[in-house]
């Protein structure tokens, strides 16, 4: 164990009295590098990679219970959900638990917090670990009381005997009791007896957030902390040719100017001093730029002409192949920004050769690896602690800011360095959600059903997350830069650019081709839902086009092609709650739209019906209301789930109607909220309704990203319904709608 870990370990153990609580992280780490050779079948969720129970749950002699997750709370509220799960399976009061999130010094390596996988990975692990821990406690009680296990029950943090005698968990826990490997299957509680799971428990993080408590990495204030700012190049690949730092160094409060190749930063005692010095340093820096960006107004041609690796990811053929009526359509999506409200921030400190970084990264372990590589330090000497930041919606500037902080902190040993990006930097340098092109072609048979289906998608990779140093800006800009790792397509079934490219509907003939484009003119990475956003937008728009061709109601048309029962149930629920009727006509100037998807074809189901008003003179679209139905398996916190879906619809609406990254031949030009407008309150819908189909006992299905694609297509379909014009290029701006109406 490294030094900082030991410090924390002592702290963790301090309250434990005489009892030594086992601590299995080293074991967990070993597991990480070297997965257990034997012991099939493997336990569920992240227990697979981190099987020791005490990596997840620790109980001290006073009965304090701490739950550990390697996932990061990003505002989705799952810290609360995990606490519910653990409380439920352990039979303790919800309030009596503490959940600790991603920290390379304390928690399991659960990779990234991404892809709506947290509930599935970590939630499942915690649930099973808690259930097994409870079994162990009961067994220990049975031994001490010399009673059969069946006679014992648990309640409120204690094992209770038939005579009412109680043995608290604190009394029962022994040295290595939880330092055991997870069993393949733990006996989980009967869902009918759930007391905490399935309840809308108020989120534990909200009180601090609404009263000014310290809640974010941006709020950290360590003793003797200094403030750093970066001066970024004006464009990708720009070279710093000249920079006289002498004047800046003399400015009030300036502690140091840090330059390493094209990496330019400064440190000052106070924050506003740092900003003033940053402006001065920016003015002193001279850069040489190269024009290397493609034309943004013709992404279709740009993307389809770049070299690509093509693979057929799905093929089915049942002759006869050809239908009667055939249509084709091409859909495009521009580069889009995560656009966190709080620009990225990190705090780093180098003490005695050990680097600690507090960061809002989505992956403390992978990020640690990248930072260690950049600093040429052993990973064990680098510790990353997740502290919540502003919502990130994927891979934004968090990891880059962490690397910035580490690089600057190295130049200033001993002092904690806080790096805060400026708004313009966040907008210009975050890795954007990639542009995409899809081409669809399908024909209908005589019965008005789809006879064959062709789907082609062109896109970059959808993840350039750290793992190697070269994925981080600081390491790319250093005098001895690290090369950007080669982009790779993400493997199916989850997929990247081809996420949700394979239709969930059953077509007799279908072919899906993924054109993976390795060349990346624009810096990109994972953005909420990845390729699923555009693929679902395309598929579900095209389904409406086909329904129109077949003369069938869009909801009915979908049901005609869908066998999946849970999918049918959410479609029916959304349609019914919306008041959808075949042959309906929307009020004047309005349109109704419908869309459905199962995220990744393996996570939560979501169907959304929407009503959009379009101003015929100005083209301005307005989402009036949306009704969603969602099935995410066993629901842990219904209110949290509703919050997520509401947010997904509202955010997707903003992406869909307004957003695109702009650039000229060398620079990103959408660098603030003027140039990258997003939803404001004047366009917020009148209502959004979310209906949950709970599936007690079914596995948790990730839901945080399931709404993005259906919301987009549902809105697009409603606009088509309102105007009679089909728009296929995102975003569906006022101007494009007006042009379509006037055409």
């Amino acid at each position, binding site marked *: 164990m490294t030094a900082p870990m030991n410090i924390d370990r002592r702290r963790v153990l301090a309250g434990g009295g005489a009892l030594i609580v086992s601590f299995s992280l080293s074991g967990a780490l070993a597991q990480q590098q070297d997965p257990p050779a034997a012991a099939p079948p493997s336990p569920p969720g992240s227990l697979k990679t981190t099987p020791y129970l005490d990596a997840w749950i620790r109980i001290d002699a006073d009965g304090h219970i701490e739950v550990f997750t390697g996932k990061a709370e990003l505002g989705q509220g799952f810290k609360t959900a995990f606490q519910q799960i653990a409380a439920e399976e352990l039979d303790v009061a919800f309030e009596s638990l503490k959940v600790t999130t991603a920290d390379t010094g304390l928690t399991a390596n659960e990779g990234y917090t991404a892809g709506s996988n947290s509930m599935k990975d970590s939630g499942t692990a915690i649930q099973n670990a808690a259930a097994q821990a409870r079994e162990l406690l009961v067994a220990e009680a049975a031994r001490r009381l010399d009673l059969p296990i069946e006679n014992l029950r648990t309640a409120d943090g204690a094992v209770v005997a038939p005579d009412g005698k109680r043995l608290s968990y604190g009394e029962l826990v022994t040295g290595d009791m939880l330092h055991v490997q997870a069993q393949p299957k733990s006996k989980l509680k009967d869902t009918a007896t759930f007391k905490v799971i399935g309840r809308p428990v108020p989120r534990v993080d909200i009180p601090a957030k609404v009263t000014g408590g310290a809640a974010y990495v941006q709020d950290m204030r360590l003793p003797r902390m200094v403030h750093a700012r970066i001066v970024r190049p004006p464009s990708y690949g720009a070279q710093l040719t000249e920079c006289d730092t002498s004047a800046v160094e003399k400015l009030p409060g300036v502690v140091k100017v840090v330059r390493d190749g094209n990496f330019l930063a400064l440190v000052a005692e106070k924050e506003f001093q740092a900003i003033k010095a940053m402006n001065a340093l920016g003015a002193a820096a001279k850069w040489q730029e190269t024009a290397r960006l493609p034309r943004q107004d013709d992404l279709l041609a740009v993307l389809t002409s770049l070299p690509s690796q093509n693979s057929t990811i799905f093929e089915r053929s049942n002759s006869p192949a050809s239908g009667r009526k055939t249509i084709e359509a091409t859909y495009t999506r521009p580069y889009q920004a995560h656009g966190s409200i709080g620009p990225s921030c990190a705090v780093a400190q180098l003490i005695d050769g050990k680097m600690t970084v507090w960061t809002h990264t989505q992956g403390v372990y992978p990020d640690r690896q990248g930072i260690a590589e950049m600093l040429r330090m052993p990973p064990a000497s680098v510790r990353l602690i997740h502290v919540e930041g502003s919502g990130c919606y994927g891979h934004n500037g968090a990891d880059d800011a962490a690397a910035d902080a580490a690089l600057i902190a190295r130049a200033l040993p001993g002092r904690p360095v806080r790096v805060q990006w400026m708004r313009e930097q966040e907008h210009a340098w975050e890795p954007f959600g990639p542009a995409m092109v899809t081409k669809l072609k399908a024909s209908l048979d005589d019965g008005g059903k789809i006879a064959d289906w062709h789907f082609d998608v062109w896109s970059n990779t959808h993840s350039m997350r750290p793992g190697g140093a070269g994925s981080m800006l600081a390491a790319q800009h250093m005098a001895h830069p690290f090369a950007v790792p080669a982009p790779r397509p993400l493997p199916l079934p989850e997929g990247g650019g081809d996420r949700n490219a394979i239709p969930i509907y059953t077509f007799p003939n279908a072919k899906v081709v993924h054109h993976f484009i390795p060349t990346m003119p624009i810096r990109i990475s994972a953005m909420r839902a990845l390729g699923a956003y555009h693929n679902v937008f395309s598929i579900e728009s095209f389904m409406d086009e086909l329904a129109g061709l077949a003369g069938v109601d869009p909801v009915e048309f979908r049901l005609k092609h869908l066998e999946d029962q849970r999918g049918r149930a959410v479609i029916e629920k959304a349609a019914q709650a919306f008041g959808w009727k075949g042959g309906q006509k929307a009020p004047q100037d309005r349109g109704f739209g419908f869309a459905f998807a199962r995220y990744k074809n393996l996570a939560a189901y979501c169907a959304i019906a929407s009503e959009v008003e379009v101003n015929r003179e100005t083209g301005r679209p307005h989402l009036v209301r949306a009704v969603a139905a969602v099935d995410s398996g066993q629901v842990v916190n219904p209110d949290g789930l509703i919050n997520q879906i509401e947010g997904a619809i509202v955010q997707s609406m903003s992406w869909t109607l307004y957003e695109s990254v702009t650039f000229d031949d060398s*620079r990103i030009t959408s660098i603030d909220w003027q140039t990258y407008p997003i939803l404001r309150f004047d366009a917020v819908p009148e209502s959004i309704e979310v209906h949950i189909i709970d599936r007690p006992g079914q596995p948790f299905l990730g839901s945080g990203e399931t709404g993005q694609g259906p919301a987009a297509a549902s809105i697009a379909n409603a606009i088509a319904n309102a105007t009679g014009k089909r728009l296929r290029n995102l975003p569906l701006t006022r*101007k494009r709608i007006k042009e379509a109406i006037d055409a």
Partner: protein
Amino acid sequence: MTGPSRLVAGIVAVVLLGGAAIAFAIVWRPAIAAIEPPGPQAFDAALVKRGRDLAAIGNCNNCHTVRGGKNFAGGLPVPTPFGTIFSSNITPDAETGIGRWSEEAFRRAMRSGFNREGQHLYPTFPYDHFTNVSDEDDRALYAFLMTRQPVRAAARENQLSFPFNQRFAIAGWKLLFLRHDTYQPDNQQSAEWNRGAYLVEGLAHCGACHTPRNALGAERASAQFAGGDVDNWHAYALNDQSRAAVPWDADALFAYLRDGFHPDHGTARGPMAEVVGNLSSVPSSDVRAIAVYMAGVSRTPTPDRKRQGEAALEQARSSSGPASQANAAGASIYATACASCHESGRPLPFGGVNLARSTAIASPDPRNLANIVLSGVQAVEGERSPIMPGFANSMTDAQVSALLSYLRARFSNQPPWSSVEKTVQDARRAQTAFLVKSPAPHGAPADPQQREKP
């Protein structure tokens, strides 16, 4: 936008001066027979399209649409000291709009200011300009309006007290000030200039805001384009009285009217923002024609004006202003509240105008600057558009005044404004009214492709 309160004041004066007698002498116009609403199919698509552009040039939507209301359904309140006049419903609704108006009735309204029934229309509807619109263009406008969505929205009763509620009073006003055919083609000038003149004097009704009005509320023919007032905004002088830091020329006017901003002048705000929002959608040849004609109106700048312009540009290039600012408060406010954007080096419209070139700061009237500092510039829903925070909540009148005086001293070579604080007080009062009644911001055109490099 016509200075409505002045108009009403004029009407009062007419009445009080015994104009009633004259008014009665004016013939009462007969009603024009109602027609069956023709329905949208009755009109040629190309004609409708031309009408759309013309309606944009005429800025029809801005007066005839209220915030959150239906297009062209009217009801925009124009508050005056004598009461409130509401704009009318010009959708083809049969009962409440102009659905039963024949083209002839429409043309008569444009030309002479009567409704179909023969009643006089208040001159808030600028028929003193529209009288110049050709029959052909009236036909296209008619076709455009008659193919809009009919909206049932009864006219709101004007809230005027006697004698302002007597429409015959308008007859007197017309007799004095309504001149037909004020636009005459000039063979000495280019076709483009003539096109511009036709639009400016007619449909675009630029003079309605930019020409000062006389005591009777009519445009002063002798001071055409010498600057006017509208909704507590100053419509800048466009003739040789212009005090713009850098003199306007046709290219600058074209770019400004087309894009809504120009780096040597600033960004269109207040009522003008609505005008440029419309002009962004019409054929550029028409905007160019307007610019060419207006450049002629403002004349070739005198050598003196030219020199001032050069000096302003020079100051804009050098980052420091004239030394020795006694106004420390103004300087500190400027540094944080203004410079972070206006000195960011980003081009317009997203960087904020280089203040040494700002027409607002060089203007003899500080009202526009006061308005913009207090209210800021709101984001346009879902569109790339400049944003500026308003400072009404964070600055007292004295602080705003200090800032304004500082800006004037630092960024212009004009004499200090007098009674700045009074202007700020008025602007703060007007700002409240403006925010309450102003329509949602329109799409300010902004080119996302533009180079961010100097």
